[in-house]
């Protein structure tokens, strides 16, 4: 009885992707891929998503450690707050970023006056938007790994005189490395696909803020075929990511 809706569900998920493959302009695919504006958007997407992931690692891993290892009042609330960007529509995130980091934003105003830094309409703005949306994926993944890790190793290291930082660096981090990697890959994929927060906060200009998803959206207006080609690139990237995570997700019992 459950098989029918299950198959319908499968078709629902797979058919749109198949449609993308069917409608793809295969004969002109390579030519279209080599167009400068496509390469530019691709390069920008890869660079921004990678830097955003680095930022997430730098801030997210310690945050996950804090949530998993340190008892403090309001921890549940902090954990809930961390997951908000996960359920928030990205456009709302973009508006929020604009109100805080925009030129007239609460912090942005001050940033511009003090350092002459203005984030909207820059690649740095893209990175900020992507990191905002993608960081929860990393934090949740790493926190889960930390909670699953055996604390006795850390305790042993601590009794042998290792400082908190040393324990974290030499014992904890190596133990949870698979979780960190999985979280980073998820985070990177989410950053790569980011659209709403980016277009709202960072704008849309070729070379500086027009990432692949924005290029897909714009191409759909005039050149649907180009949009298909760009979508295929993103699809290919997703498949590669899925393949790299194969062992932890697809093969999970």
């Amino acid at each position, binding site marked *: 009885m459950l098989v029918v809706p299950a198959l319908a569900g499968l078709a629902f998920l797979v058919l749109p992707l198949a449609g993308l493959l069917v409608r793809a302009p295969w004969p002109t695919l390579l030519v279209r891929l080599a167009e400068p504006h496509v390469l530019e958007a691709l390069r920008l997407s890869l660079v921004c998503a990678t830097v955003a992931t680095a930022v997430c690692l730098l801030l997210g891993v310690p945050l996950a450690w804090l949530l998993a290892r340190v008892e403090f009042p309001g921890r549940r609330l902090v954990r*809930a707050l961390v997951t908000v960007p996960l359920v928030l529509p990205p456009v709302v995130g973009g508006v929020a970023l604009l109100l805080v980091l925009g030129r*007239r934003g609460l912090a942005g105003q001050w940033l511009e006056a003090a350092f002459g830094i203005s984030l909207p*309409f820059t690649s740095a703005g893209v990175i900020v938007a992507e990191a905002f949306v993608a960081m929860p994926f990393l934090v949740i993944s790493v926190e889960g790994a930390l909670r699953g890790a055996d604390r006795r190793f850390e305790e042993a290291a601590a009794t042998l005189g290792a400082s908190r930082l040393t324990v974290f660096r030499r014992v904890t981090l190596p133990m949870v490395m698979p979780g960190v990697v999985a979280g980073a890959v998820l985070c990177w994929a989410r950053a790569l696909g980011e659209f709403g927060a980016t*277009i709202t906060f960072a704008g*849309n*200009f070729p070379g500086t803020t027009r990432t692949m998803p924005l290029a897909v959206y*714009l191409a759909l207006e005039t050149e649907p075929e180009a949009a298909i080609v760009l979508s295929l690139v993103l699809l290919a990237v997703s498949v590669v990511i899925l393949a790299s995570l194969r062992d932890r997700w697809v093969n999970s019992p």
Partner: protein
Amino acid sequence: MVFRRLPRWAIVLPVALALAGLPGCGGGGPAASAGGGSKEVTVFAAASLTETFTTLGRTFEAAHPGTTVRLNFGSSATLAQQIVQGAPADVFASASPATMKTVTDAALAGSPTTFVRNKLQIAVPAGNPAKVGELKDLADPQVKVALCAEQVPCGAAAVKALGAAGLQVTPVTLEQDVKATLTKVELGEVDAALVYRTDVMAAGDDVRGIAFPEADQAANDYPIAVLAQAPAGDLARRFVDLVVSRQGRDTLTEAGFEVP
């Protein structure tokens, strides 16, 4: 599994929100009401028509009790693509003949009527922080400028106007429709933008408009057409009649449009 660590509400909440949203997004399209003397007319209109067509929609509903006018605003290019892809619209009002042509080329609309013209203005935030006074000030690299993307009518008009003035302007962003461009001015994120005169007027005190002579060479004609497959049929024609009527023209000219 990564998501096992999510607090329960983080899973329950989006599901609840998604369910709550369901009736709103799919429910009762024009097809559903087509049978019993269609009482719904779906109008796809350029973003720059947001205020005027909302008013006209109410006027139409008042004149035809029991009818609902469903309005969908966006960049004309997007709307044209949606219609070509089979969106169930009755009327299409676009901000340029080029975007209307996308629809007529696909044999999806009869002959369109030009009902208004619109001109660009320079929009600056209240207080005009960059002291923009004329079009050539936009070429100053210190001035942050937002333009519409060239694919959408306001962007095409901007390119034409800047070309006519012989100016090279490097914007910081190319927005998807004219309202998005205007928003960047309203928020003060840019120092200037090229948007329609009507958008400047609709924005009120947050935005100041500066007219410039080259705008005359880049005026946009707005065509309107009943779509060939219009589920609302006759009702769709009556909506177009209202737009081109005396009353419709008054509403539109009041908002800053020029009637040809």
